[in-house]
């Protein structure tokens, strides 16, 4: 770690972005290191694919680089970067939906046979925690997008209601009610896991 990196490491996100706006690339590097894992987990819970999620995270940081002067100190930096990453994840989901539609409609009549994975046979091979994670991930993916957004930000990323409200640009009350409804939906989707806990 260089002297400059050490001096930057105690700075807040807002101070770092200000330095970056003034041309300090060490500050940018530190922001990337601070946020890359957080954002990876955030994107992963939307997409369920680590490679695609890494791509979203990289694109988020490139957008941050490109639009560094668009950030104004009035907003919290974390909410700003989560907004960028969230929008990119949403775009990726949309693209995926389109790809799926195309690939299914591209198939001929003969080919439209799907092999459904025998989950029962796989269960034994999966460790308990991996299986549990898969079930939870599947349940999250089944949620409508507006519920998925809030529950990932609140119960996985553990952001405050106020921050979620500014990331999604919706009123605080709406965030709270969506979180409750998402939890309620997950209760029914996660049946057994909830009972065991």
């Amino acid at each position, binding site marked *: 770690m260089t002297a400059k990196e050490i001096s930057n490491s105690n700075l807040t996100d807002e101070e770092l972005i200000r330095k970056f706006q003034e041309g300090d690339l060490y500050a940018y590097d530190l922001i*990337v290191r601070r946020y*890359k*894992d957080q954002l*990876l*987990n955030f994107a*992963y*819970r939307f997409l369920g694919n*680590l490679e695609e999620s*890494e791509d979203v*995270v*990289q694109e988020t*940081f*490139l957008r941050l*680089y*490109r639009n560094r002067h668009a950030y104004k100190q009035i907003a919290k930096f974390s909410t700003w970067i989560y907004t960028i990453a969230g929008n990119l994840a949403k775009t990726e989901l949309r693209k995926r939906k389109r790809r799926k539609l195309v690939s299914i409609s591209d198939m001929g009549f003969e080919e439209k046979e799907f092999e459904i994975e025998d989950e029962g046979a796989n269960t034994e091979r999966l460790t308990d*925690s991996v299986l*549990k*994670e898969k079930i*939870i*991930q599947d349940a999250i993916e089944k949620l409508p997008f507006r519920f998925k957004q809030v*529950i990932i930000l609140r*119960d*996985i990323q*553990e952001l405050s209601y106020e921050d979620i409200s500014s990331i999604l640009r919706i009123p605080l009350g709406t965030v*709270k009610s969506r*979180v*409750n409804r998402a*939890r*309620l939906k*997950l*209760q029914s989707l*996660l049946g057994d*896991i*909830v*009972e065991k*806990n």
Partner: protein
Amino acid sequence: MAVCYQFLKHINDYIDNDIDPTELKLLNKHMAECDECRLYVERSKAVKLSLSALPRYKTSSSFDIVFKERLRNEIKQEKISRWSLPFQFNFTNPVRIPAMAAGAFAIVVIGLFISQPLFVSNDSRQPAVAGQDAFSTESIVVPASQSTTNDQSLKMRNYVNVREQFHLDGQYSNYSIQSNNASGRIERSSDNDSIRAFQSNTNDKPLIRQANSTVHF
């Protein structure tokens, strides 16, 4: 599952560990009596716990390498666009739109000014350059009284016309000059770096002009 509406807010605050002590007392009392609400709280807490206990992933070992490469390209791209554009186009910024319009207007005015004939005919009744489309035709009028004092403007004019000719039909030599009283031609030099103007007199004998009629481009 039905939850008692009047306790919904307290329940959510309770799940989020953000409940007032007085409200907590009230809620505990209620939950002791209401199975539905107690079950809802327990299940919601279990959901929250399951989500927060999900494994946290770290970026892969190739993340930094790939990202550095992408960033390097981004920086390179930014430098190129900074060189090619003195300012960034931003069509969403209302302040910049009038400035861009003014800039575009200035470019048009300068363009019109440059495209004006640079030849000055000694004959005031004649236009300096015959044919408005001198850029796209093969002939340019050279005044009969062309003298060495006009070489500078001849250079400019030829430069523009010859380049245009090259672009239009890919011919690289023998560009002709004609006027009412005199004619001539321009030839490309063997090294392809310059063209040389020849002016013929009325009996059409080519006359090699002075060195300063060589046009560089």
